[in-house]
């Protein structure tokens, strides 16, 4: 089952999916770094990561 996290930066809302928690943390931080010049802490991403149906998000 894929893992899913949504960015809550103002005006963003991007949904990031990945195959594992480690990959999700990496992909979420790549998004926050590239799109917002910032970062999210690993624990904060994992605290709200959800299981995701296949094929959802980016």
């Amino acid at each position: 089952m894929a893992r899913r996290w949504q960015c809550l930066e103002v005006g963003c809302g991007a949904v990031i999916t990945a195959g594992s928690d480690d990959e999700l943390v990496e992909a979420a931080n790549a998004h926050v770094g590239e799109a917002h010049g910032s970062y999210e802490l690993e624990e904060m991403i994992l605290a709200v990561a959800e299981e995701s149906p296949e094929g959802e998000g980016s």
Partner: protein
Amino acid sequence: MATHAEIRPVEKRFRLHPELMAGPVYRKYEKASRKIWDPKLLDYEQDSADWARMTEGQREGIVTITVRFEGGEQEVTDELLPMLAAAHALGRFDWVMYLATFMVEEARHSEFFNLWHSRVAELDRPEEKARHWPPRDHTVDPSGRFTTGEPVYEGLPKYGKKLTAAVETGDEAAIEGAFVQFATLYCAWIEGVLTMPSYEIVIDTTEMWDVLPTLRLGFKSILGDEGRHITFGTQASRILIEKNPAYEALAHDVIDEYRANAVGMLEYQRNVPGLELEKYQRQKVRHYLNRCREMGIAPDQTLVDQILDPEIDFVVGVEAG
């Protein structure tokens, strides 16, 4: 004389069990145990050399933040005990185990800033550091709509006393409600919203100036610890709010009491040329929305709007804890 069984039945003397050890809070305890770092083992020589070649303005810009981090870390170390006592009173042994690591980590952060000040900025005595702590009398909203408070130095002792009093009553609902307020203020609001831009500003600034790699490393190491602290507080609050939804209002009340400290712009945002000012306001909103999501509570949209409102223009001191 009471029998052994009357003092505590033998099977109740074992607090750890497989379900507890598979839970998210115990996992934080395990992770904290693996992630220990020692400020005394860091190399401060490059920072010291950078400090000598930095301008007076650059040095003052940095040290006005770091002294407040040192004070803030010592305050949060010293004010954490009520949360541990409450976890004990609620019979949540995984919370007790994790909070033991939490307190050690806050002490380690205190030690890091103390060492950095001594070895890099050559500040050893409290009165030397105090000279770099700007007065708060210029952090006033000129419109009079907002009044900034002292969430670290006034709020934590106040809500800590309230939690301690609740623990002494033994009333479970009172302890839970006071725990939600203390954890919301300490973990969600101070650590999880107000302090977060300060870390990023220091990291951004030292990267922009290409100086102070050990200060940056220390901040990043502290952030790794803080991620566990913040999400412990928000997850524990979520558990209690799911048990009794009336606690959500208590969380909003304590945030509302110190809302101006997020609405205002950090004075450091104004003092360092080259920083994108709006980035840190948007960041505060993102962190606030993230904390609400972790706690399972509805965000206050008026607070979001006020943080982002360019018409609201006043500065607040750095919160660090």
